[in-house]
């Protein structure tokens, strides 16, 4: 029989997360596992810590509490650039439940919000320890046990952040792929661009070759040509019910171009 423990603070919850206990955020992942008998534990830990819902700006970075829901993100004026990303997650009911922290644990092909966070130089705060790079965190997430309290991201200049979710079902569907790019420019040329993909690997991943190819490039057809070539070797997408690895690889350059050049689609 499953026991649910509720703690007032994230730290208390983290302390209670020993053994095989799992942390419950919005419930969209854990409860599905509970319903299907797939949860490997009988202990669920949760926290009602209000700090975990806060969204705050400090300097060039923004901190988003891990318990903030997609709807919270959409309603927050500081996060207007992330509203389209949050809106691409599930339907309205899912967005009222699913949290920013939970999205970091969503398995392929989910986790589109984390893709955007990854492009925006996301850093993860874990209760009882310090900050950690999101990319590194995602790589070790399957063995992670603890409480993510917040994710901080860079605040992009207007127009420097791009996001697209490619889905066959509209308006709500799972990713064929999702793409996010933070495209800071210096003297008109790209400098320190970060490009991340979702549904193109086991976790959201950065396209390192693409980023290198974009360094110093102009954001135009010839400037991005090398990056479009690089994307094929950067990613090893899986087969799944939505699309094959072949197809994903084949259209990744197309969608990357559309993202980078901000092309209209239909």
């Amino acid at each position, binding site marked *: *029989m*499953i026991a649910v423990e509720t703690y007032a603070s994230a730290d208390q919850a983290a302390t209670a997360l020993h053994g095989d206990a799992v942390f419950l955020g919005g419930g969209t992942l854990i409860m599905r596992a*509970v*319903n*299907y*008998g797939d949860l490997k534990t009988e202990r669920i830990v949760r926290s009602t810590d209000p700090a975990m819902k806060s969204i705050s700006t400090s300097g060039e970075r923004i901190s988003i509490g891990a318990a903030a829901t997609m709807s919270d993100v959409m309603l927050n004026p500081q996060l207007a650039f992330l509203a389209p990303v949050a809106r691409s997650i599930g339907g309205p009911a899912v967005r009222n439940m699913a949290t920013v922290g939970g999205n970091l644990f969503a398995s392929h092909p989910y986790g589109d919000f984390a893709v955007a966070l990854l492009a925006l130089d996301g850093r993860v705060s874990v209760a009882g320890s310090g900050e950690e790079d999101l990319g590194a965190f995602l790589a070790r997430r399957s063995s992670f046990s603890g409480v993510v309290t917040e994710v901080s991201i860079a605040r992009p200049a207007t127009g420097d952040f791009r996001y697209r979710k490619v889905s066959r079902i509209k308006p709500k569907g799972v990713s064929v792929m999702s793409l996010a790019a933070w495209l800071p420019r210096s003297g008109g040329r790209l400098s320190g661009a970060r490009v991340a993909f979702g549904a193109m690997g086991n976790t959201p991943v950065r396209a390192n070759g693409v980023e290198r190819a974009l360094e110093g490039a102009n954001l135009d057809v010839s400037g991005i040509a090398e990056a479009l070539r690089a994307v094929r070797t950067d990613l090893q997408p899986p087969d799944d019910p939505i699309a094959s690895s072949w197809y994903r690889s084949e259209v990744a350059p197309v969608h990357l171009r559309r993202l980078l050049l901000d092309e209209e689609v239909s």
Partner: protein
Amino acid sequence: MSSVEFRKDLFADERPENLNEIGLPKQRQDALGHVTGRSPYYDDNLYDGLLHMRMVRSSEYHARIRSISLNGADMMPGVVRVIQAADVPHNINTLLSLIGFGRDDEALLQDKKVSYRGEAILAIIAETELQARKACQAVRVDYEALPHVLDVEEALKPQAPVVNEEYPNNTFDYYDRYDHQKLRFGDPHAAMARADHIVEGEYQMSPIEQAPMETCGAIAVPETNDRILCHTCSQALFFSLGTTAKLLDTPSSRLHFKGGTVGGGFGGKVDSLNEPMAVLGAKLTGRPVKFTWDREEEMQVGAPRGAERWRIRDGVMNDGRIIAREFTGFFDSGAYTRLSSYAVVKGTAHLPGPYTIPNVASNVYCVFTNRTPATAMRGFGITGVDFAIECHMDKVAETVRMNPIELRLLNAYRDGDMKPHRRVAKNTAYIECCQVAAGKADWAIAPEYSAMSSLRDGGGERASIPLTMIDEEGRIGERKRGANIDTAPSKITKDSGRAPSVIPILEATQAMGEQAAGRPQVGKATSPAPQPSAPPAPAPAMAPSQTPSPTSAVPAAPQRSAFARLQASEPAAPSQSRPVEPQPSTPTPPSESEQPYRPSEPFSRGVKRPGASPFISGRRR
């Protein structure tokens, strides 16, 4: 966005409009219940102490079960009862046994061999669904993996693993005689030889989930008077009741089934797998038991619309007339028959689609593979072949450079035309649908096509049954014994050109005519007198000669030996070719209104086995 118009101008004289209730947009009786959340679906019955059933399912495509270890599952918290194959009183069934079609081939629970991934092995009943799930996870099944086959044509090969022991050739047995359903009408082989073009295509229909929003399920409750009440979302209440009575070896009077308000079905709620298990659970525990599929089971264990593979070969004249059409079809039945055998027969009767083609043949196979059994779905038996036919029509149109709609109209069936299953078409409206759809979309068709009518220019010569070439190829077991037989009805191949037939040709030995059956028939049509009209009907594209092609009667040596052996063991098989008189135009039979159905009369009950099949027209060979 969308719009609806009623074309009351069409067929107006066939349709009295003086009715009070019919034809009016009355509110649905169930609308208020739906919008208030009060419509009573099967799961909307609350019982204290309701138990929940879950299944241990095969993780293998095809495997012998060496042993099953409960591994303490029966002692786990909340577990009330484990049900195994031996607990099912009559653990073998086939759905259509209720109408006497096919042999029992599927167990409710398997304990010896599993033939698809997800096949049920044992059931666990517990106080909560979660407890039942956890107990199922504890059970250990020791499998000895067997080779498996997933492709329909691979399954036909002699060395293919046997999927279903009841049908060791991996094909359903038709009429104790053939490994496929035949359709033979005219002589497509000869007609192809004089066609201007041969157009070929292969089409693959995917397996599709019915996906009703409500998953399949049942709640069974011990009722007063030693009966079991079963709330069900079955699409066929008495089908489920009868199936349950048979599997549980229980008089149907002991069962009380309630349902009727169902959250979508689309064909996926005919198979009656939940009801017998829930009822058995209630019997064995004396408590209310619910057995519902979760969405994952609904999608991967619940039977889908089966995949179908179709090949079509047309003989086409330069002017667009299709003078011959052949089909080779494979229904992927999965591991058991369920309803696929029936879909094959239904699909065969549908050929060649809504067209009057004077020479048609088909071989359609119901094939067993190591996948989830297929079952009914919206358009069952028809959707797949319609996809094939209508894609193919466009290829034909492209070949002869015709407007695709005009090509269809040129070949369209009309009132009075003979269909290849040898019943006259009536009440047709195919031409009008094409014309109206073209008009709505501003797709121009020539005036002579706009002037066509389903009511005119059918029948006459188009009502005749041509001299028909028949054969005995594809006897049950022939392929398994290594006979190398093409699956297609004739042997014309792209590579070999129009080779002569390699099979002995037998001929229909008597005139076909439903009136000879001596009992009322459905699908009966009057032969309307052709009316003079403009434009003229397309010339009926009948064979110029009514004699069989001499070349086609030559038996080929390589296939002969296997064939001859079979023939010898088959007393009913005619042993030599005989000429036959072509069927003249059918005389006008009495209309349906003059001969109403008489349900009180006894009716023929399926094919008698073994031996010669009775002939539907009332005559025997």
